[in-house]
């Protein structure tokens, strides 16, 4: 018997995985090994499964994911650095029945946009914030971020983050979980299949709660930056487990009573 051809294998009944239709055909601009692609896919997969494309308006940040609108097949707006929660507030207040989300990194959300983040959370804006935290400014070339761990080396903390002079990493997710306006706050990762499944569940809840007008939902995804951390993808995931997770423990931080 001859070996099966490509055509023999590529049958619908053999399909175990397919590309989400709400991701555009554009090749991702992220470094190989980066978690952004998986995070994009999960969000778009949920939007697709919940049949929300026509009702979704996304807000892209400044940073590595500034071009998120090239990959997500939905209407999107690009916000100035840190201002995505304010932009999303403007949209959502005028379209209370649309699904409005922001997708932001740690420099965007927890440094330059701290004010917009905290006040959108505190007002209980009925939006969803997806926060990808890799402890570094990736796009500008690996500078220290508000979430950079103590002693972690970056291009602007080349001898490691000295908390005496550079301050402490900001646990903004725990901070906003304390505000009465947030409804559901969760921290996840997307570096293993098990974690991907958990992250997807959190994303589903965050979107569902917005539909139910419950207030602000916030999903942090702790991710790697193998380029910025100057490691291989595998090493960066290992380093993330050993160093990031103890400081930023995974799991739900605030769940509805």
């Amino acid at each position, binding site marked *: 018997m001859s070996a099966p051809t490509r055509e023999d294998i590529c049958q619908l009944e053999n399909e175990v995985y397919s590309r989400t239709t709400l991701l555009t055909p554009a090749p991702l601009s992220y470094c190989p090994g980066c978690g952004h692609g998986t995070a994009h896919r999960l969000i778009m997969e949920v939007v697709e499964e919940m049949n929300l494309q026509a009702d979704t308006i996304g807000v892209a940040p400044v940073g590595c994911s500034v071009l998120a609108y090239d990959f997500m097949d939905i*209407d999107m707006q690009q916000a100035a650095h840190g201002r995505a929660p304010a932009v999303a507030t403007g949209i959502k207040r*005028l379209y209370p029945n649309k699904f409005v989300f922001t997708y932001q990194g740690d420099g965007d959300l927890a440094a330059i946009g701290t004010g917009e983040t905290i006040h959108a959370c505190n007002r209980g804006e009925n939006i969803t914030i997806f926060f990808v935290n890799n402890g570094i400014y990736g796009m500008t070339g690996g500078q220290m971020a508000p979430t950079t761990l103590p002693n972690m080396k970056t291009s602007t903390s080349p001898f490691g983050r000295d908390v005496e002079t550079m301050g402490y990493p900001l646990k903004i997710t725990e901070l906003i979980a304390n505000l009465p306006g947030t409804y559901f706050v969760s921290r996840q990762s997307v570096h293993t299949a098990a974690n991907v499944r958990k992250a997807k569940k959190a994303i589903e809840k965050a979107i569902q709660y917005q539909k139910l007008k419950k207030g602000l939902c916030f999903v942090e995804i702790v991710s790697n930056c193998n380029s910025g951390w100057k490691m291989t993808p595998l090493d960066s995931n290992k380093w993330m487990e050993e160093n990031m997770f103890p400081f930023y423990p995974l799991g739900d931080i605030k769940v509805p009573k």
Partner: protein
Amino acid sequence: MKDVRLMKGNEAIAEGAIRAGCDGYFGYPITPQSEVLEYLMANKTKERTGMIVLQAESEVASIHMVYGGAAAGKRVMTSSSSPGISLMQEGISFMAGTELPCLLLNVVRGGPGLGTIQPSQADYFQAVKGGGHGDYKMIVLAPASVQEMYDFAKLGFDLAFKHRIQVMVLSDGAIGQMMEKVELDDERPRWTDEEIVKMHTWAATGKTKNRERNIITSLDLNPVKQEIINRKLQAKFRKIEETEVRFETIQCEDAEYLFVAYGSSARVCQKAVQLGRAKGIKVGLLRPITLFPFPYKEVKRLAKQVKGIQCIEMSAGQMIEDVRLGVEGIVGVEHYGRLGGIIPAPDEVLNVLEQNFIKAKIYERTH
């Protein structure tokens, strides 16, 4: 029967916005413009027309809420005064780059820095020459009465959507705070979401099957494409220069001397023209209503007629640069300004004109 009310300038523009079908106002308190937000809140706009009013945590947040609402095709506005408008320049630049319509109000106070809460016209450069980063222009309307504060809300929104541009009403603490009678017109209904989808095909309102995605972004990393975007913007500004110039002339027909002034200063000069005419001085007033586009042609036309042009501004001399560009050296142009929140008096500015052009006779006609 006409609906005529006695109102503050700040209240008039708030009422004008409600009646112009404004969908959303996002703002932050600052003297001397806080009455805008106060008036809107007190008027329960949500119940009256469905208009959303939100007090933001900062001027930065306000302008980005406007950016979000504008991207979704809604009639949105904010207001502030000088230090707050400085904070908004980031968002204004983003809206310039994405060609989004919005209405902005600057009730100008004296600067620089915290300056004073008294009226000033020292933000002309910021408004007219582009206060944020990048090559862009806004349409700038300069009201000289409380009636115009009211009227310019609707005019501003209409120009903003006609050209997909930001329209700034450049007022000042005097026009914002003073009370005058205002004739109100009927309320115009807000657009429905269906109308917005139909009219503003560029708006990010949710991707439906029958159209491509709408992406609102000012980013293009390809310099060749970015230059094309910029050239398109410039072409739009040139078209606005051709079609949207607005000004008022007062007793210019036989004028030998000319005041050029806008806003509060124009009100002062209007009285100075009366005083001058009573003394037998043939003086007129050119009042630019649009500061961008500036009435260069009218300035040049009058420059050929008069013996001298006296600019009056509550600044160290900013509009005068545009006047001189229009005059092209045909006749002498002098500046007189009061700074730090002081409004000049009519006899004061008339005296300056007389000193500069009649008594001193330092300028002769050059044509």
